[in-house]
């Protein structure tokens, strides 16, 4: 099992992701610099970590979405490789048009940093299979622009196709329909604002995030 964590200038959860994946799955994790044009061979999971890539210049994730490594990430995702964007990584996936919608500034204009309860809206995806039988999980959010937005047609499609994967029980940022995480149509690209990488051991307050990494690699 092999995972790759993409490191953009300004990523700050890249090492958290590496440790979280290693400890929860035992997989080997390579760090891949944003300027690289290729991913390691036979990678089973790609993670775009949280942080403030390119200082959030222009728009969160906008610059990172155009960095050289993203062509390789897109190609791998199109081949079906499991790809997860966490927090800023979710913003990057939206900017790269690998996921629909966009993340706006939080409705209350505040940076939100706290544990949140999430409904597992769809436990049949390759990222959430391990949550089957469990309705709720706990992870941590830390974002200023985590307010998911998409037009009504897109929201209806996401709901109808089971692409809404996580929903906040108590919406912390004004996200449309309380959406915390979505998958693409093919089901192999996941974006979520809460951090599974900050919830992979009981000592961190929750070990629920470990299940996400385990599920993603179990299905590889």
């Amino acid at each position, binding site marked *: 099992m092999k995972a790759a964590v993409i490191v953009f200038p300004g990523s700050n959860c890249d090492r958290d992701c590496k440790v979280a994946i290693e400890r929860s799955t035992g997989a080997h994790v390579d760090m891949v610099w944003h300027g690289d044009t290729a991913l390691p061979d036979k990678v089973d999971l790609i993670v775009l970590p949280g942080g403030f890539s390119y200082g959030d210049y222009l728009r969160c994730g906008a610059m990172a979405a155009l960095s050289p490594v993203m062509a390789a990430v897109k190609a791998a995702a199109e081949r079906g490789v499991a790809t997860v964007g966490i927090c800023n990584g979710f913003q990057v996936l939206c900017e790269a048009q690998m996921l629909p919608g966009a993340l*706006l500034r939080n409705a209350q204009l505040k940076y939100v940093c706290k544990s949140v309860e999430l409904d597992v809206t769809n436990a049949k995806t390759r990222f959430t299979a391990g949550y089957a039988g469990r309705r709720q999980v706990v992870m941590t959010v830390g974002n200023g622009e985590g307010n998911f937005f998409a037009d009504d047609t897109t929201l209806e499609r996401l709901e109808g196709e089971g692409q809404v994967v996580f929903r906040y029980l108590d919406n912390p940022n004004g996200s449309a329909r309380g959406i915390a995480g979505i998958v693409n149509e093919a089901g192999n690209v996941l974006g979520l604002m809460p951090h599974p990488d900050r919830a992979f051991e009981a000592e961190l307050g929750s070990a629920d995030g470990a299940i996400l990494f385990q599920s993603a690699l179990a299905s590889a």
Partner: protein
Amino acid sequence: MRATVHVYLKPGVLDVQGKAVQQALHGLGWADVSSVRVGRTIEFDLAASDVASAEAEVKAMCDKLLANTVIESYRVEVA
């Protein structure tokens, strides 16, 4: 040629910054201010033979990078 690009959140998208600025203006006594929108202006020089081709190029730049058309609209001026 000099290009000026104005980027704003689309009308249907809640502009929380605009709302906060509006509240602040109300607090300062300008009670009749309404519909505040906060946007972004990007200016740059570019070499182009005529205004029409410059506009076409700048619009392509907006669609690719300068604006996120899921949430934002833009207006281009070339002079």
